[in-house]
């Protein structure tokens, strides 16, 4: 098979959508936080927490959907920690975010060791199975790519629709967008900036954690260390790439996933002439290029990373 033919196979696009799913969840989560004015660098750690919490719930006998819920709650809890430090206390969002990532990651590994002291190879669970949507999944290539996925992938796409609706069609979405642009506009209309921002960070963190859970409960069937592997940081770039808009961020996530799926396949057909690291690097290099091309003229939320203190002068 040559390099171009790959792009026209259904199996390639099935993989693209699968790889994109966790990124979609987490990117939507980060987007909500940033639209409210809070940069959440806790994303990498919160995804780790979600990956473990969801998987461990199922491993301990819980239902798959219960696992998703527990992952979301665990993410929300770390989101609450992040929000408490950055919003009412107004601490540096960079420092808090990195702190939350380090804490959440280490705490997860620690809990894993405590809970499973004996294991040598990661224990497995029965993950979400692909669910073909009748009719739609018979459309060649596109239908197969989109509609033979696991329920969690469908949920990811639903999340994009939901986030778009909330941000642009509801009163609370209005308040979130205003809080990230000019918090005093929110305050002047009698809404608590603290409440809006904390709510956004907690909800966004829950989404990030579900993104992490996708890896252990849908893409794979076990939890292992380092499995988030920088996906959180990619999502931060995807938010910028998407100019803080859910639809464009979704396109970015799929684009990045396509690069990623493509490089794996290129590795297989290259026959070892080119070092495989070159292919591994490709999605990241292309992402930087895409950021340079797309995001240069983007207008970011003006109050992003600026703590709001009521009554300050």
């Amino acid at each position, binding site marked *: 098979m040559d390099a171009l033919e790959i792009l026209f196979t259904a199996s390639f696009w099935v993989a693209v959508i699968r790889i994109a799913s966790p990124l979609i969840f987490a990117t939507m989560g980060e987007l909500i936080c940033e639209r409210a004015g809070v940069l959440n660098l806790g994303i990498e750690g919160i995804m780790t927490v979600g990956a473990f919490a969801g998987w461990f719930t199922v491993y301990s006998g819980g239902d798959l959907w219960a696992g998703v819920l527990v992952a979301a709650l665990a993410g929300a809890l770390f989101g609450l920690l992040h929000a408490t430090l950055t919003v009412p206390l107004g601490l540096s969002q960079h420092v808090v975010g990195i702190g939350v990532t380090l804490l959440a990651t280490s705490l997860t590994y620690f809990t894993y060791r405590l809970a499973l002291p004996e294991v040598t190879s990661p224990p497995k669970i029965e993950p979400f199975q692909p669910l073909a949507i009748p009719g739609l999944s018979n459309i060649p290539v596109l239908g197969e790519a989109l509609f033979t996925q696991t329920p969690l992938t469908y949920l990811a796409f639903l999340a994009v629709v939901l986030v778009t609706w909330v941000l642009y*069609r*509801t*009163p*609370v*979405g*209005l*308040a979130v*967008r*205003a809080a990230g*642009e*000019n918090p*005093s*506009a*929110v*305050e*002047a*209309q*009698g*809404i608590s900036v603290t409440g809006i921002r904390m709510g956004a960070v907690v909800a966004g963190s829950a989404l990030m954690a579900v993104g992490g859970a996708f890896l252990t409960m849908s893409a794979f069937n076990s939890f292992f260390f380092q499995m988030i592997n920088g996906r959180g940081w990619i999502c931060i770039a995807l938010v910028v790439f998407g100019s803080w808009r859910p639809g464009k961020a979704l396109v970015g996530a799929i684009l990045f996933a396509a690069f990623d799926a493509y490089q794996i396949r290129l590795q297989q057909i290259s026959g070892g002439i080119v070092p495989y690291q070159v292919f591994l690097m490709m999605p990241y290099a292309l992402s930087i290029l895409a950021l340079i091309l797309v995001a240069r003229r983007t*207008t970011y*939320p*003006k109050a992003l990373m600026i703590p709001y203190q*009521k*009554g300050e*002068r």
Partner: protein
Amino acid sequence: MSDTPVLRLSGISKRFGPLRANDDISFDLKRGEVIALLGENGAGKTTLMNILFGHYVADAGTVEAFGEPLPPGDPRAALDAGIGMVHQHFTLADNMTVQENIALGTQSLWRARLDRASVRQRIAQLSADFGLAVDPAATVSTLSVGERQRVEILKALYRDARILILDEPTAVLTPAETDALFRTLKLLVAKGLSIIFISHKLHEVMAVSDRVLVLRAGRLVGECETASTDRKELAALMVGQEVKPAEVSPANVGAPLLVLEGVSTAPYNGAALDDVSLTLSAGEITGLAGVSGNGQAALAALIAGTQRATGGRISVAGREVAGWSPRVALDHGVARIPEDRHAVGTIGDMSVTENVIAERYGSPRFSRMGFLDWKAARHFAEKIIADYDVKCPSPEARIRLLSGGNMQKLILGRALDPEPAVILASQPTRGLDVGAVAYVHRMLLAARERGAAVLLISEDLEEILALSDRIIVMSKGRLSTPSARGERSIRELGELMAGHSGERSDAA
């Protein structure tokens, strides 16, 4: 009509650290009345209104609206009680539409869907009733300052405000926009609203208010019916003493010192410069009037050297200078009084001494063999503090701790001490009180007497008229033809500021 005041403030006090921003202030506002709250910058007007609106919590005192006490620190309660506030710095989200800004917070947050239709309808109704024309679908970032202010007023009216507080509403408006605002206020009062109008401009206070309250240093020092007072009396109350305007002698114009020929730039905080030519001559103050954002910032940045010209030539004392930069500008005797003294003029966390030598730390006066001469630097700081009457604890104090006026005096001292040939003064008196303004004006006039060329960029038309020997109006990145002192009326200048050509307005 009942005599219960719509608003009653009793014994409001508020401190910020050692500063007594409000000290035991009490007054009533009646239905259909316009109160002007007059005072210098820093007199406590804005603080008082922020307490009233719930942004700040007072240390003591109570607010009653329509006979009911208002809980402190709760903007929502103030809104619900019918108090609307148009802040000096607009509280609008620039990324959202007019309609979205107005709807924000007016519908339950947990509705599944924002009801846009009813919002649009109501805005159309209010716009028509009060003559507040604005496109509800426009994004705020595309609106002019006057339009944004109309949106702010609509926001209050949308919430059925019965009391409207306007904080320095005319500071950012052209004369024509100001007139339109005053017409709107008359309509509002006719419908039974009460208005508190905050200002430090006497003629506006005289024009719109029924009653004037004068604040000075956080205290209410005077209260009078507008009809039975005059500007002189109010000015004296405001400052606590008679203020004499600076006296201007005829200009003694010398040779051209700084000449810009056909310069253009990229946009900078507003419009770009478009083929601008300007000559600054010795012994003359050139006043540049205009509504902010029309290219004044670009021109100031160009002369200061912080922005490059994309075309044109810059000459100093008759010789073209290539590679214009902040260092080159300073070396050619161009002194800068920057527009934003906090962001550009000073480094807040560095000391007064460090700040006053910031432009010249490399000169032999302050450095020996690459090491700073702190003794000389400190002497220089002490000299400026003494000569320019700066109130500051010591030359070691962080400059952030100084008031705006004192900071400005330091910048003035730093700029004027080396007796520069050219002085670029951008908004030199913005945010200063009357006393400090008079001081800055005297210093600029003194520099002119000794033969400096001064470019005065200001949004305050009165300041331009008082000081300038020659007035140029900037609009959309271009300059009008200059006019001599007294040649153009305020109305003519206003039309130039609004972008109409001066020649055509003469014919009309």
